[in-house]
């Protein structure tokens, strides 16, 4: 009995040693030489592999930024400025701080504002619906509400609200990786600056139809009247193709445009409530 056990142990130990030696030599022969800094940078990165930086995953980003001469063109939206500063430190380079961004769904065509004119009975995909026809409302530019953006978001930051019928961004979770902007077949979602104290002003409409057509389709749509553009003291607003657009780099958050917009298409986010009582229908996230 003991002889069998001893023999078994001896054989297994010998096999183990043999494999260890073989593996050692194979590992040495097939070793991939990699700059150790790549590993360091990769460990600093959040590891979401979301592709928001434009690279093919966190390892590719690490490789790219180590091999590049400077930090230009490399920014991890998920990690943001803290992570980029750490990486710059690790590589002994300087980095510029970028303004944090957030995704904004530029449509306020809720079920209440934008009545449905037909019933869509196909597969619940915005892509399928957009290629089929002009949509189930009178506005063919607006949010279809079938959730392609929600399906593609890795951070649980955008959801289609069943009561409102449009996509809503949770700005605490949004990392501005840009996946939803690419997924939206209507091009409604835009990455905009998060703003001073997370405050921003945005035109929630991308409808290019003439004002009368827009108004008939949606009570919160931009009719291209131009009042906002004339009122803005900083020239931040342009009206093109019957729709207004606020340049977030120029906007100083004075909110004069919000007051004058006749359809309340321009909305403000995260401002403290104004002292006088004003009726502001269709407002979000105040």
């Amino acid at each position: 009995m003991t002889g069998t056990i001893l023999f078994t142990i001896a054989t297994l130990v010998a096999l183990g040693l043999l494999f260890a030696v073989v593996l050692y030599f194979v590992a040495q022969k097939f070793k991939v030489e990699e700059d150790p800094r790549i590993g360091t940078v990769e460990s600093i990165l959040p590891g979401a592999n979301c592709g928001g930086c434009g690279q093919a995953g966190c390892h590719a980003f690490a490789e790219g930024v180590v091999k590049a001469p400077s930090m230009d063109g490399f920014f991890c939206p998920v990690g943001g400025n803290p992570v980029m500063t750490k990486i710059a430190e690790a590589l002994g380079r300087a980095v510029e701080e970028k303004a944090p961004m957030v995704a904004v769904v530029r449509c306020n065509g809720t079920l209440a504002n934008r009545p449905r004119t037909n019933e869509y009975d196909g597969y619940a995909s915005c892509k399928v619906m957009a290629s089929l026809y002009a949509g189930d409302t009178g506005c063919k530019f607006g949010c279809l509400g079938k959730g392609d953006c929600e399906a593609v978001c890795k951070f649980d930051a955008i959801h289609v609200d069943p009561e409102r019928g449009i996509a809503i961004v949770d700005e605490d979770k949004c990392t501005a990786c840009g996946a939803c902007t690419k997924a939206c077949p209507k091009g409604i979602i835009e990455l905009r600056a998060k703003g001073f104290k997370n405050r921003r002003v945005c035109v929630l409409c991308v409808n290019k139809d003439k004002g009368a057509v827009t108004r008939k389709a949606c009570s919160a749509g931009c009719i291209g009247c131009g009042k906002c553009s004339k009122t803005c003291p900083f020239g931040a607003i342009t009206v093109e193709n019957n729709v207004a657009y606020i340049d977030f780099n120029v906007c100083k958050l004075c909110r004069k445009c919000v007051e004058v917009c006749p359809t309340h298409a321009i909305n403000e986010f995260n401002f403290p409530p104004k002292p006088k009582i004003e009726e502001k229908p269709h407002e979000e996230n105040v």
Partner: protein
Amino acid sequence: MDKLIVSPSPHTHGRESTQSIMRDVLIALTPAMVVSVLASGWSALILILVGVAACVLTEFLIGKYMLKRPVTICDLSAAVTGCLLALNLPPNAPWWLIVIGSVVAIGIAKMTFGGLGQNIFNPALVGRVFLLVSFPVLMTSWSDSGAFFGFADAFSGATPLGAIKEGLANGQTLSQLTADDLTLSQSLFFKMGGSTGELSACALLLGFIYLLCRRVIKATIPVTIICTVAVVSGIFHLADPDRFTGPLFNIFTGGLLLGAIFMATDYVTSPMTTKGQIIFAVGIGLITVFVRYFGSYPEGVSFAILIMNCTVPLLNKYCKPKRFGEVRK
């Protein structure tokens, strides 16, 4: 008029649904179930009812409370598993045996993989094999009390396959063992010791014809399995008639007909193309025969089907249907 409905084409649908298919399978199983109740009494009926109830309840509870998904018991697939499991057990098995089997079949073999359509192994067979391995004595002995209309001679003890395997192991020859054995007509029309569903080849064949007429299954898999078993066992039997049982015996005993018609043709666990199905069926036939002849278990169909279930993803990947444009004249 309400708002117009708009959707991509097609705008109409065929008549089949998952529920209608499962309903057809249940109807096809009815002759076999009726025969087993007539031959074995109320205990068989109780077994079937308890099996169905246990399967449906397991699927309901797991789906609703563990997976928190919409309940899917209305598609009747759990009921089908319950019936098949009941037909795979000896008719006088205790009720708790089939409850355990149902929980294993639905809970482990189906729901852990993700529910209907996601499982790799046939749930009823997983349940059966689990019970066979855990309760070997209960699963392989029969007594015949409670039969209606005096159908069977009291036939307690092992199944024909079991008896033969034991006998051969003890050095007897086949001719000695089958001396007072069943004629073909007896096998066809009920008289065999066997699990509930094996009791009547005729009833099973009726179900098979019904499924073919309703276009629920194609004949490919059952026919190929039976032919493979017939050919392989025929060859062995000719080579050594005293050691190896013949093709007719092999086709009509054990769960071969039940397995070939109802278990191997399960959509989820069988290949989707004809080429894959033929390879699948040949494999089942071969393994069945080899387990019966050379394996330590008397019955091979359950194991054969489960083993070939593993190969199905591979068969689906490599056996593609004939493409339009590949045939050219």
